[in-house]
């Protein structure tokens, strides 16, 4: 089975809240000192899902596409080090300032450019903007069936069987190929590349593609083509003042908390 995974390089979502800073005027998140960007964790899980499909089917390829500035290359390299075959970097000044729609449009053109594979996999959402729409938009643009927020993906003859996380449990869904899948955190940990694989991936060519390579006019992509406009970006503030319940023993602390809750009429 041939699989394409779309990945994104983002500021490390494990950045401690204290190190997270926003430039409100520029509406941008400032890079945290000493904390390197990473592949979006859901996307690493998507690569893992793709590699398992390839292994189970016994043949085929796992190719990686990422749209973004120079740093997107690192997400591609990470995926290659995990075991993916080829990487494609959609890189063009025209892509800057885009939204989910323009990103999905460019990705769908790149997928058609490379040939629509049996399975297209995305993370359930990029852990920066947390929208979770790009996979579904690509599915719609390519007129493919889709299943989102998955915890398990299995090859079932020529079709795909997945387990979708829903509010009150899980749904089992059968999909024909080609299809689009998005992977959720319940999928489990992705493999971690070994040093040897990182070295091999470092030597691999990553193919760069521009808007015009994909037949896209600059007015269709980036800020010019965006359908969503951002008006503000800021950090929320908490106005709660915590009261620490003191005591010499756990029993005293427990009694103190119950009293405090009663006095505050919460109990």
């Amino acid at each position, binding site marked *: 089975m041939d699989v394409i995974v779309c990945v994104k390089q983002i500021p490390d*979502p494990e950045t401690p809240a204290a190190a997270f800073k926003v430039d409100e005027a520029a509406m941008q998140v400032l890079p945290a000192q000493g904390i390197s960007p990473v592949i979006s964790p859901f996307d690493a899980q998507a690569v893992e899902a793709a590699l398992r499909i390839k292994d189970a089917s016994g043949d085929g390829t796992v190719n990686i596409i990422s749209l973004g500035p120079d740093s997107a290359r690192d997400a591609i390299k990470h995926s290659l080090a995990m075991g993916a075959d080829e990487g494609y970097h959609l890189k063009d000044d025209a892509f800057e300032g885009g939204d989910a729609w323009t990103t999905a449009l460019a990705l769908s053109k790149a997928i058609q450019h490379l040939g629509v594979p049996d399975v297209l996999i995305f993370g359930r959402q990029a852990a920066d903007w947390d929208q*979770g729409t790009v996979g579904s938009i690509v599915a719609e*643009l390519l007129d493919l069936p889709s299943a989102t927020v998955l915890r398990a993906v299995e090859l079932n003859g020529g079709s795909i069987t997945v387990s979708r996380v829903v509010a009150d449990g899980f749904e089992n869904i059968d999909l024909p190929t080609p299809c689009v899948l998005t992977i959720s955190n*319940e999928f489990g940990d992705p493999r971690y590349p070994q040093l040897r694989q990182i070295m091999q991936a470092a030597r691999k060519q990553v193919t760069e593609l521009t808007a015009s390579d994909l037949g896209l006019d600059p007015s269709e992509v980036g800020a010019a083509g965006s359908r969503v406009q951002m*008006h503000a970006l800021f950090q929320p503030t908490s106005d709660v003042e915590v009261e620490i*319940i003191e005591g010499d023993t*756990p029993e005293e*602390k427990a009694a103190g908390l119950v009293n405090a809750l009663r006095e505050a009429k919460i109990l």
Partner: protein
Amino acid sequence: MASILVFGETDDTGLTAPTLEMLGAASRLSGDLGGGVALALLGSGLSGAAAAAGPAGADTVYTADSDALASYQTDSYLPVAQAIVEQDSPSVVLMSQSSMGRDLAPRLATRLGTAAIMDSLGLEVDGDRVKATRSCYGGNARQVVTVQTDPQVITVRPKSQDPLEADSSRSAEVVAVNVAEPTLRARTTGKEQAESEGIRLEDAEIVVSGGRGLGGPEAFADLESLAGVLTAAVGSSRAACDLGWYPPSQQVGLTGTVVSPTLYMAIAISGASQHMAGCGGSKNIVAINKDPDAPIFSFSRFGIVDDYKKVLPALEAAFAKALD
């Protein structure tokens, strides 16, 4: 023609709470946008829920009532949703940030030539646009965004909006929608219900939640015991769910359930932003954590700095005595 079309959801009780909340938001927004509020219901056996639409704030209710729509499937819902939007031509489409909304909103928006904003926390009218405030960067930041194309598709986080007081003197015009036999490509073949003992997370007045700091799955039995005394639901952080300590259906957070109980007890939970995205709306948070610098304390009203293993038995006894 409505200014705002709400895609509602139903359960055994009729319209779901998020549907009532969206109708409340739609009523407030439509005052500024001009035009009415319509509700679209896709499902099977909808007459009871449809009758509740008027009192909850809808002027019109579109019902697509068919066995083929008994449960949400992308391929069966999408063409029906598209037909209703094209019939109603609203300027704004609202959906819940639910299993359905997450999946349907971006595909529907693309099919309609527009875009979707996901998981809004706040909505306000600015000219003919609805400005949505939403959480991003795992809860570390908020952004204010508008959809520049029409219709503006927006999903709404449960419990972020207030429903209207039900007014039984109001009624909505019911418009039945024809449903053609759907062509299913992706096909739902079965469902595994999460064991739902006790109180549903989103309905609970008190939630007792545990995180990675519990150290293992067995500690959840102690949380369940405490929850029994408090008539509370038990939740879990994403870290604890990802480790397989507790079912994903009980996950509180950005990628799980959003809760806003009167009392949220966070036990051995550090308070990562993505967890706070799921419980930050709680009226009171109590944190028990041995790390005095854990971020959870900065969101809490009361805190105990100690090992939960020592505090929990004492706390259960103290609650049992107080509530006796």
